[in-house]
Structures are given as structure tokens and as C-alpha cells.
């Protein structure tokens, strides 16, 4: 059950969850409303035709142009794009889910954007979401224990953000 038929089944099961799609891209993807991501994942994992029981990768892409001159010419809106790559071990097919988040929660810099956590659905998401939180700065609602996993516990800032400034020094070690 491939192609548009799969899509209709998904939209029938979860009306209003899918907010966009691009089937012609190299890796066709569908866009999902951020707050519905957990329901869509649960449906994909448990009741969709080829069950997507393996979550391969969770990524956060920070679309933002730090210096103002180039920012004017840019075609896309500044946002944070969450990309979920799913894989079905039985049917051996993949699926890409995307969700767009504002760069900062209600645009106040310092407030991390929020998205429901899918750690409840796939247990591998637990560590992947920790890494995204630690480096790209996205809050996951309902994550068992949200902490920094790669950077030191007391590190400030989120390195993979485009407008991230490398700290001058860290506990006496010179940064620049």
C-alpha cells in the first residue's frame, strides 16, 4: 500500500494532522502539525499498513540568516525544522516527517521552541531528542529526563544554532 493511497489512509485516520507534502523531492516528505507529532507517530507505528517500528534519525535544521544584509535576500522564513526519518523493518520502506517550529517560543529569544516528545513511541528517540535539545535547542514536552547529553552539564547556549556565539572561555579554558 504505497503512494497517495497511503497518504489518504493517514489523513482519514488523523484529519488535520498533515499540513503539507512534497512528493516530488528526492526524499518525499510530509509536513505534520508540531503538536500532533506524537499522535501521528503512534498511528504510524501501531496501526498504519507498513508499520514504521524503527525511528532512524531525529534532526533539527535551523533556518536563520544571522547577518542582516543577506537576511533580506533569503527566500525562506526563519524557522526550526524538525525532521524525523522513519523505517519499517518488515516492509523495508522509509518515510520522512517534517514539523516546523518558530525559532524561539513566542519569539522571545532564550525561550526554547517546544514539541511533544516521541520517546513514548520509540524508545530510541529518548537519546536522539536529548542530542537535539543539547545542540539545537528544542524543548521536548514529556521527555523522561531532559538533560545535556553531549556538551558538559553547565554549558550555555546551543552550538548548532546559526546565531550561536562561541563562549570566550569555559572554566578558564580560552574559547577563542
Amino acid at each position, binding site marked *: 500500500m504505497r*503512494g497517495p493511497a*497511503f497518504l489518504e489512509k493517514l489523513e482519514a485516520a488523523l484529519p488535520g494532522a498533515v499540513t503539507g507534502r512534497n*512528493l516530488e523531492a528526492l*526524499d518525499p516528505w510530509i509536513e505534520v502539525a508540531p503538536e500532533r507529532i506524537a499522535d501521528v507517530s503512534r498511528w504510524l507505528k501501531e496501526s498504519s499498513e*507498513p*508499520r514504521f517500528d524503527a525511528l532512524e534519525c531525529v534532526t533539527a535544521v535551523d533556518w536563520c540568516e544571522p547577518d542582516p544584509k543577506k537576511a533580506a535576500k533569503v527566500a525562506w522564513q526563519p524557522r526550526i525544522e524538525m525532521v524525523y526519518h522513519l523505517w519499517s523493518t*518488515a516492509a*523495508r*520502506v522509509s518515510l520522512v516527517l517534517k514539523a516546523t517550529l518558530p525559532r524561539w517560543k513566542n519569539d522571545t529569544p532564550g525561550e526554547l521552541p517546544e514539541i511533544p516528545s516521541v520517546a513514548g513511541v520509540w524508545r530510541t528517540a529518548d537519546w536522539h531528542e536529548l542530542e537535539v535539545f543539547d545542540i539545537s535547542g528544542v524543548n521536548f514536552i514529556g521527555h523522561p529526563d531532559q538533560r545535556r547529553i553531549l556538551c558538559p552539564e553547565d554549558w550555555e547556549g546551543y552550538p548548532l544554532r546559526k546565531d550561536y556565539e562561541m563562549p570566550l572561555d569555559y572554566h578558564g579554558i580560552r574559547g577563542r
Partner: protein
Amino acid sequence: MMAAMSATGLVATALPLAAINWHSTFFLLFAVLACVCAVAVVAADNVVRMALYLVLSLGATAGLFFLAGAEFVGAMQLMIYVGGTLVLLVFGVMLTAQAPFVSIKTAPGDRALAGIVGASLLAVLLLSAFSVEEWRKPAAGVVGEPTATPIGMALLGVRVDEPPAHAPAGVRSGYLLPFEIVSVHLLVVLVAAAYLARAKRRKTPRAIEVAASVEPPASVAAHAAIGREPAGRSGSVLVGGPR
């Protein structure tokens, strides 16, 4: 250190020295070591050090046994006391001697009281020791060629204290063997008691039990139902299929 001393002590006894003073010097050495360590056990405040001093004092008494020529009893002392009981004692002390329990302070009042009781017992002991006639005479020398055979024979039921009148017919049975059997029986009873009185405690389940008890999520359980797609060119699910 105490084992090395008992070693040289042994070498000394084997060659019957004309000059007795080697023998007595070692005797004095072991005796002083035993007493000092015994006092140290009581005086020390660090629990593990107490255990160490106990080891040293019992080791010194083993040295005394060897000096007196009773090798079997000396080896027995080394094996049973020092090798067995004290290992378990040190085990216990090490397991419990975490920070709060390590140093045990005794109030000065208790020290005085203990001193009085100890001194009085010592006095009684010394008086009775010196009142015995034979012990006042100088030592009668080393028992030549001590063998463990008499002890072995006694274990097999031959009365060793009075030498039998004549050959095997005069053998009268002794009671050492039944005594040993009773002690083994006692050991068995002790182990059984320890086993029955054990405390019950929750156990952390092994990974396999956790995995088994967690019934597989509905999706995976139903997985087998779907027919396996041919291992064709896989790609995104959104591609292909009926238009």
C-alpha cells in the same frame, strides 16, 4: 613478619643448639609480641587495626607452640584461628567498617573499670601459675622428634595417654573420633540454621525477565501478519504504488 619469625624459630629448633639462649630469646620474643598485641587489640580504637593486632597475637601464640615442639598444634592454630576465624572476622570488620563505625571511642570511666577487672583476673592467673610445683623447675629441654602419629592413632581409637601393656591386643578404644563426628554434626546444624534464618529481599529482575514481562507493543506483535514485500528497490513509501 610474625610468619618470618616463626620460620627462623623453626630452623632453630630443628638443630638442637647447645646454646639454649636462641631458644629462650625466641620464646621471649613471641611471648612479648603476643602480650603486647593482645593489649593493643583492647587499646586500639580503629576497628580494622584491632583485627590486625588480633591476627598478630594469635600468630605469635602459634610461634610459641612451634617453639614448644608441638608442631601439629602450632599448624592447627595457624590454620583454624588465624587462617579461618580471623579471615571471617576481618571480612565482617571490613564490610561494616564504613566511615561512622571505624573508630570506637571508649569513655575514660569504662577504661578504668575494664582495667580493674582485667588486673584482678591477671593476678588470679599469675598466682595459680606460680603455685604449681613442676612449672618452677627449669624447662626439661625440647621433646625430640615429635610426631603427629600419636594424635593420628588417638583419632583411630587407640588410648594414647597410658601406653598399652603389650602389642595390639592391649589396645583400648579412645573417644576422640566420636568427638570429631559430633563437631561435624554441629557444623551441619549451624549451616542449616543460618540458611533457614535468611532474610527475604526484593531482587532486581534480570533483563530477560523485563523483556519477557513487557508484552511486545501491539504493532510489532501484529508484524508477522503483513506479507513480506519482495526485496525490491526500497525507497520512500510515498513513491510508487497505484496512481
